[in-house]
């Protein structure tokens, strides 16, 4: 237990997420992973753009999309980016409680976003856009659904972290975990920027 004692006097490093080699590895590795994810989403976007005109009589973008709904979803996700940024600032300040609060806020916004998305898909389905009705439908659901799956995974991941570390305080081992979760969250937001622009806005206006 002598070690634990020593740690109590440790000053808070400026970047606790990068204070250990493990942390630096995680940080770098996670970013690289996001580089790969970029190509993944690029491919899905490509497939969508190649097929978006192929509605084959089934409903198409301009008949389906409700921009107001999408606007709300966008605002939710954008705000969740801000809450996660605040979480990181508190991580660096050593304010563990606040870190948790902001992270919970992020989770809540993520969950809200997901509910909207589920509602949206449900709506479209009932307007006749089944997954199998046209190439446009398949590519739309696959692209937006993959993003949604990322959001769902992010929500589950951050929730796990929050429960697991609800009492631990900021440590050298959990700081990188919180930090990478936040990076992931921002990335989800980046992808969404493209989705609302390319799928929804261009779908209605292009």
């Amino acid at each position, binding site marked *: 237990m002598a070690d634990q004692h020593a740690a109590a006097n440790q000053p808070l490093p400026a970047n606790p997420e990068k204070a250990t080699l493990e942390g630096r590895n995680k940080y770098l*590795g996670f970013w690289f992973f996001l580089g790969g994810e970029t190509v993944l989403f690029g491919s899905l976007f490509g*497939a969508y753009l190649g097929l978006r005109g*192929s509605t084959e009589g089934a409903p198409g973008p301009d008949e389906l999309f409700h921009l107001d709904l999408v606007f709300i979803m966008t605002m939710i996700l954008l705000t969740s980016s801000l809450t996660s940024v605040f979480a990181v600032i508190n991580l660096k300040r050593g304010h563990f409680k606040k870190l948790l609060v902001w992270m919970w806020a992020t989770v809540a916004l993520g969950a809200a976003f997901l509910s909207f998305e589920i509602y949206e898909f449900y709506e479209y389905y009932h307007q006749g856009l089944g997954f199998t009705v046209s190439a446009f439908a398949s590519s739309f659901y696959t692209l937006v659904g993959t993003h949604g799956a990322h959001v769902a995974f992010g929500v589950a991941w951050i929730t796990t972290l929050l429960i697991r570390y609800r009492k631990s305080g900021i440590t050298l081992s959990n700081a990188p975990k919180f930090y990478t979760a936040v990076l992931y969250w921002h990335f989800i937001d980046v992808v969404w920027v493209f989705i609302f622009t390319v799928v929804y806005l261009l779908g209605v206006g292009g």
Partner: protein
Amino acid sequence: MSNSSTSKKSVLWDWLTTVDHKKIGIMYFFGGLFFFTIAGLEAMLMRIQLMFPEMSFLHEQTYNEVLTMHGTTMLFLAAMPLFFAFMNFVVPLQIGARDVAFPFINSLGFWLFLFGGLLLNLSWFTGGAPDAGWTAYAPLSTTSAGHGLDYYIMGLQVSGAGTLMSGINFLVTIVNMRAPGMSMMRMPLFTWTTFVTSMLILFAFPALTVGLLLLMMDRIFGGAFFDVAMGGNVVIYQHLFWIFGHPEVYILILPAFGIFSEVISTFAKKRLFGYSAMVFATMIIGFLGFMVWAHHMFTVGMGPIANAIFAVATMAIAVPTGIKIFNWLLTLWGGRIRFTVANLFALAFIPSFVMGGVTGVQLAMSAADYQFHDTYFVVAHFHYVIIGGSVFGIFSATFYWWPKMFGYRLSESLGRWFFWLFLIGFHLTFFVQHFLGLIGMPRRVASYLDGQGLNEMNFISSMGAFMMAFAFILLVINVFVSRKNTDDVQDPWDGRTLEWATTSPVQEYNFAQTPLVRELDAFWHEKQFGDGRMKAAEPLDDIHMPNGSILPIIITTGLTVASFGVIYSTWSIIILGLLINFGAMFVRSIKEDHGYHIPVSEIKREQGEGK
């Protein structure tokens, strides 16, 4: 607290749970060799079927399955894992690291590869293997009956996930874990090519992931991506596949380039000629690798502008590759060349690969490719570059690093027999195939008609193939009969790079003290200008090591079970598999495991023994 797990567990358990990059490397080696043998046997079946016209040794459906599995297995489950074996084993040693950046993920990557490969091969026993070629073009692949292609999709998806993880692991290891003094421009070439290869993996595999995902959507969930009647477009699949597929072939050759650079400079006793040009050429090849994919699609009807652009871009790759070839020649120039088996393979690579490379440039000429495409000319081209490049690289590395990996030297005389038989068999098999293609033999044909002038050359080709198989058996024998050669294994070739500065076999912590690197070819430098030992960059201290874990296997099992569920569209099994998978990931993420420390006393004792 740090739990010192010095307690000895059973050997099997030790291998199942290991996160040691060296053991993982060895497992990759045997996994890769296992699949190489299977895919090689499949090649033999094909060559028997093609030995005479209108043979009925294999039914045409079976032939298509064997053909598909040969290509798929060779590329994804044999060649790549064999390179991963050496990358895992050697790269951390070459950069003077104790470990890789993500030991746990490294082990996960291995098990994903293995289980993905086994899953794919299971299709043989469940009603038929995939039959649409390794490229699985839609709509043949989306309409193919049975479950073969579902196995293809899920098997590659699982093993592909493993590959991606390993790629990221190598990247971070190389960026973050280099020993003091080991700047990027002092890294051995094999480490460099590993780095660029990993970048290619990082950016190429996601495209395959999506390609397979779309196939899966169409086959299993009724999607319409490639269903023309529903507005689908089948060319999209080809793009996705080749955006992955072309970088994939450079994933297969760059590590071999790295290996040859090490082997040639070691056995010429010379510093690599034009080191920085070599590094630069590697990067250019990697970059151009992403710009040329559509040369596989010249005949699909993209249009003349697209064809012309991709043709010219493809040809450009000859320039950096040529730079490499000439640099190797100049490395040999003025050297003192020793013809060990490792070097024989490296030397045989040069003419063999150039022959394959120049036919590649011929293929790159779009207008001429209308004749070449999908004929045996292409088959000849890629076996020349793949066997003359990648496989020779693997064999060269096998002989070169074997003492380091296994603590004994392979027999040189048996190795020479193996080399010559394999080399002659290889040229015999594939040289005639150029002409077969030109006089009208398409590829992927289950047989050919008598009287079209194709008989003799096919027969010769099959004979060459048998010769290769025979040679390969000599390699296997070599592994068993050479086990007594345990003398002179630490630095048998007068090596230049850091892996030769450690003991053989290597201690689990690689270096008792992290070495200080002062020059390119760090170890050679110390041998020439120092006292022949690496300077230490740190005082002797306790060494931190990660704990082994069984979780990678459990996670992988979960994914494999879920894949079964997908193949047979059974939700209960999908959910069961995902529960196992996420359950194990959950355990992993909530369990704090900070590894353990090896005390100085133990290190001193082991170092003492090592002398």
